[in-house]
């Protein structure tokens, strides 16, 4: 039931298809796993069920924390019976929590499938708590529910909830939007300053209480491809959102930085002087991985929304052939630059029917499959090499200096198979016992 999608002829040459059915993807709550690490003074309180609590702890391996900065207010039968009570109960839980964690400056109330279905109004709850707390803690809300959001979309919701709180400023600045590893962020800020862009801020910031300003002097570079709503709200606040490929791989990162440089009118020659050596170095770092990956066939299952930029990187910089590129959902405007860089006729499938997609995986005999944790071992057991996609949202992969590391994430499973496969699956013995 894969349906072709009508395409504006001038935009892209990829073969865009749509599919629906049973899915194997995380919901938006999962974003909390990296968001809470980015902002150590924020707490994420999911208003949901035991399933939500179990999901986050299973995805995050939370036991290493003495007390994590995320939790679930688990709805009970009583809360379902009366919404008025549920609001009182939520206030009580939030108060208890804030008393216990006085260091928390921002409390995110995160909606879930059950809270959305019973129409528990978290915006009203946030308003009420804000009044009560009088600025000591800021309370915001967004939905990470699976009926509305997919995996990384949760970050879009959280950041979109922060946009109205950003102070207004007309000053000229570059705003990087999307969670980056701290070390990657530092490096990028350093590189932008070498290009001549001195004022660089980030959303989310490292402290939730230090929100960057926004206004007509703000130029936004999205670091992640899943921030549609946040980008729209920033535009509404007067910011210019640049169009560029996403900063994955040497080429994408370079074009991404060049987009900012052009917007800030950095002299072209000096931009080249900064970026050329970086790109040359990235090519050297990529070379050994390209050797492993070139000519190999890859199939990306939908999960993180990073699939299109990754496919572009793996094809153009690592020489891989793209069997199929799955995406949970496709925002064609935001992805236009990426789609334009894919080879003609690339099969891009939006949505999922996991069984049929796995049929296509088996039929297509790819060398490597990018997929979620629920599918990786079962595919490996069928003899298909995999790379789990969740690692891609936890590892520092952004920027020109990480291109080699990013490629390594894909070459490692192939390299590993090559190292151990023949010993673990002996055919005929090369070592006759009675030689």
């Amino acid at each position, binding site marked *: 039931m894969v349906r072709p999608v009508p395409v504006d002829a001038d935009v892209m040459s990829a073969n865009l298809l749509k599919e629906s059915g*049973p899915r194997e993807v995380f919901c938006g709550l999962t974003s909390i796993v990296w968001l809470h690490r980015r902002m150590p003074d924020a707490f994420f309180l999911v208003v949901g069920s035991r*399933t939500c609590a179990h999901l986050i702890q*299973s*995805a995050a391996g939370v036991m290493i924390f003495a007390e994590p900065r995320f939790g679930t207010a*688990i709805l009970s039968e009583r809360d379902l019976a009366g919404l008025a009570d549920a609001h009182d109960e939520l206030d009580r839980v939030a108060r208890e929590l804030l008393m216990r964690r006085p260091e928390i400056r921002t409390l995110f109330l995160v909606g879930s499938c059950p809270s*959305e279905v019973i129409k528990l109004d978290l915006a009203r709850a946030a308003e009420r708590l804000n009044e009560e707390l009088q600025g000591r803690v800021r309370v915001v809300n967004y939905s990470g529910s699976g*009926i509305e959001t997919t995996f990384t979309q949760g970050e879009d919701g959280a950041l979109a909830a922060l946009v109205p709180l950003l102070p207004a400023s007309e000053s000229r600045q570059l705003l990087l939007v999307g969670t980056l590893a701290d070390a990657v962020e530092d490096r990028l800020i350093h590189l932008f300053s070498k290009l001549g862009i001195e004022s660089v801020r980030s959303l989310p910031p490292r402290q939730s209480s230090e929100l960057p300003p926004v206004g007509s002097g703000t130029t936004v570079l999205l670091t992640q491809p899943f921030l549609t709503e946040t980008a729209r709200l920033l535009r509404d606040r007067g910011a210019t959102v640049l169009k560029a490929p996403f900063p994955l791989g040497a080429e994408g990162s370079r074009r991404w930085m060049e987009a900012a440089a052009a917007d800030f009118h950095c002299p072209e020659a000096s931009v080249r002087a900064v970026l050329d050596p970086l790109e040359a170095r990235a090519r050297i770092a990529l070379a050994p991985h390209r050797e492993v990956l070139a000519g190999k066939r890859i199939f990306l299952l939908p999960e993180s929304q990073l699939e299109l930029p990754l496919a572009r990187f793996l094809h153009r910089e690592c020489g891989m052939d793209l069997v199929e590129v799955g995406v949970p959902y496709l925002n064609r405007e935001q992805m236009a630059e990426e789609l334009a860089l894919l080879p003609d006729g690339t099969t891009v499938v939006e949505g999922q029917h996991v*069984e049929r997609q796995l049929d296509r995986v088996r039929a297509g005999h790819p060398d490597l499959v990018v997929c979620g*944790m629920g599918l990786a*071992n079962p595919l490996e057991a069928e003899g298909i090499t995999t790379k789990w996609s969740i690692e891609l949202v936890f590892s520092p992969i952004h920027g020109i200096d990480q291109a080699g590391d990013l490629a390594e994430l894909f070459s490692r499973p192939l390299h590993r198979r090559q190292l151990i496969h023949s010993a673990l699956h002996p055919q005929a013995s090369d070592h006759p016992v009675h030689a």
Partner: protein
Amino acid sequence: MELTLWTYEGPPHVGAMRIAASMHGVHYVLHAPQGDTYADLLFTMIERRGQRPPVTYTTFQARDLGGDTAELVKRHVQEAADRFQPDALLVGESCTAELIQDQPGALAQGMGLPMPVVTLELPAYSKKENWGASETFYQLMRGLLKQSVPPQPSHDVQAWKHEGRRPRVNLLGPSLLGFRCRDDVLEVQRLLSLHGIDVGVVAPLGAGVEDILRLPQADLNVCLYPEVAESSCSWLERNFGIPFSKTVPIGMGATHDFLVEVHALLGMTPPEAAEGYQRSRMPWYSESVDSTYLTGKRVFIFGDGTHAIAAARICSEELGFTVVGLGSYSREMARPVRAAAKKLGLEALICDDYLAVEAAMAEAAPELVLGTQMERHSAKRLGIPCAVISTPMHVQDVPARLSPQMGWEGANVIFDAWVHPLMMGLEEHLIGMFRHDFEFVDGHQSHLGHAGGAGAGNNHGTESVRASGCQDEAPSGQLIWTADGEAELKKIPFFVRGKVRRNAESYARTVGCKEISSETLYDAKAHYKA
């Protein structure tokens, strides 16, 4: 509404998945939104399974809610039935679907499918994972067997005698994501076969629909894990008259009792009392002089009901430990856990808040913790050695080697697993004692991280233990520790130091003494030992 930072058990539909995934030929259609598929990774990553759990998620979205979600359910049921052609279909809902009340089970029942369809109603807002597993196993078995229930149960448990065959028992309860179930089954099978008893069906682990249909052919059911199988065993007893054994064979004493119970029920001569001593190394290891130092070790136990109760018995009767805390997160098992605690002069902790468990652990000041992976982390923070005895499952709890908890070999495994962390506890103490010797200059990395012994001149270890071990303690008020009091305290092994400090302070307060010197410490010691 309850604030939960971490939970010991998943929702009840995860329990249902455990049953479906344990069996073959059973498929589960789960009416659930996108995201609930996370539960697949429990099987594929934590248990390292090479197969996806046999579950089809209807994956409804917000935009479906306005329309016909019932149609969506039927489509997925039909697709699952066509594609997987299971021998039996389970149909149920997760927490969100429960709210929209599509009755997926009734819908599937009305579709005229060729295989039996079992409806699961697992209230997600009041019940948890183990209950869901138990209920699913029960409903599936009942659904498949209800037609063959005799009007009057007439079961002859000793039928094997005149049928000229060996007695035959079913092993009920082992499942995926259960603690060491895979290895326990092998060990119990071996144990029974040594006594001429055959195993008919093992279920749910590895069973198919045809095996469930064979359940009534056994002489006796063995309830290995009451959390999962007790309700099913009771149903088989009520309807088919098949009795079941209730002793869980974990530990020397319990394994012996189990054999006696099974033999008695089957009308066989009970086994030699000395069998355990001959078959297991555990009793001799525990008697050997090397183990003398285990005497009276303070142990804090927390886990599921079955394993916590078993651990309490082993610790107090077979290893000579002193149990200073016993608890469980299984509310369904609260009664037997309370009884076991009472026998040891304790009040059981029935609780699913891991922070309260950690606080109780700190308060009890044990020298060893037997708990879940969460207690392992709590114990690590408190600087106390720990062994894991119970689910929730962690990838480390599925070792490659054979590692049962049950039977004679299980007792060996338990001896090693519980005593080794303590040896290391002693080792930590020695490292602490010798930390000023030049050999330790480079600093020896402790397996307890920075909480244990460390190299010369590095006092971080002891400090952090103090800081975390005493966090719940009342402010010392006017009490002053003299230099020689502090020095004496430092000589005490780090893992009991917090307790000694607290005892000394509360003793000083009781007798109205403002300074704590080494003498006060000895006074307090005498006071509390008396």
